[in-house]
């Protein structure tokens, strides 16, 4: 076998190995789990969006604002569900903000807190401890503070968050925001906008 033939064999073997490994490691399909506390819209809507976010990620805040506007424009056509994917190695308050969100969700106040937390992200992200700000937001959102603090002190909320992050990782997520639109994965708001245009042209 000469050098050119050997090179071709190397390329083919390499391509085969990578394609095989990709197939073996293929992300699991997202079973749409109706987490009603963190969902809005009609579950039978033609477009189902599952959003994996880190509440401290600036791109996620931009995506949330975009989706909120889009949802308001198409309230009957979209079902939106939020899942946790805190990037704790990059954002110091990723887990704390997710915990507050999960504990708010248990009182049916996820969206009320989300509407306060996301627009003020740039401010609380810079704090050493954002908890006083989150507590004030919780009061403003009408959350029962005793129940909230009991939830924050328990391990249960943290477990839900970690389980959702593990699910996301098993689906190939490595950055946020990542969306699954009718099961198709898109990462970042630009790709989200492009994908939504295929469902809602113009």
């Amino acid at each position, binding site marked *: 076998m000469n050098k050119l033939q050997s090179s071709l064999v190397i390329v083919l073997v390499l391509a085969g190995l*990578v394609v095989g490994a990709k197939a073996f490691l293929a992300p699991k399909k997202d079973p749409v789990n109706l987490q009603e506390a963190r969902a809005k819209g009609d579950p039978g809507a033609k477009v189902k969006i599952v959003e994996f976010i880190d509440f401290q990620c600036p791109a996620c805040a931009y995506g949330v604002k975009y989706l909120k506007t889009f949802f308001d424009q198409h309230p009957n056509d979209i079902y939106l569900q939020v899942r946790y994917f805190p990037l704790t190695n990059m954002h110091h308050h990723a887990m704390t903000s997710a915990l507050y969100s999960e504990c708010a969700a248990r009182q049916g106040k996820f969206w009320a807190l989300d509407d306060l937390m996301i627009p003020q992200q740039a401010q609380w992200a810079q704090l050493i401890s954002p908890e006083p700000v989150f507590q004030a937001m919780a009061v403003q959102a009408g959350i029962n503070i005793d129940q909230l603090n009991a939830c924050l002190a328990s391990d249960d909320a943290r477990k839900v968050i970690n389980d959702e992050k593990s699910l996301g990782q098993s689906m190939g997520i490595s950055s946020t925001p990542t969306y699954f639109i009718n099961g198709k994965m898109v990462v970042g708001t630009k*790709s989200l906008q492009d994908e939504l245009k295929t469902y809602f042209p113009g």
Partner: protein
Amino acid sequence: MYTLLRILIGGIFIFSGLGKLLGPYQNFLYVVQAYQLLPSWGEFLTAQIFPWIELLVGVFVFLGMWIPWGLRGAAVLFGIFVVVVGQALIRGLPLENCGCFGGLVHFKPQTVIIMDSAGLLLTYVLLRNLSYVKKFSLDSYFD
């Protein structure tokens, strides 16, 4: 010494290419979009093709096959990284990490531009010493 450097540079590109190829391409597409350099179709093509180029260059440099071409390819790749990350820093784009190794390892853009510049320099040194670099390579077997 030169052989080890060649294997190291090849290994870096294999690691980098595999890190992107083994995950969903959408993750690398998001990284490419963050640099705000290309039109949408260019971003898509880059996300699909670039990791394969990295892997091929890495494997051939690692194995020592077509070394001069492999090293030139590595130099071009390092040069592209320096320019792309450099322009992002100059423009003040909000990059939290470079996205260079897929989801495997994260480096800040400031760190990675130093690493890529060092890689470019080392590749140049190897290109200037090809006779030493060819030791323990497939080129020395075939040629």
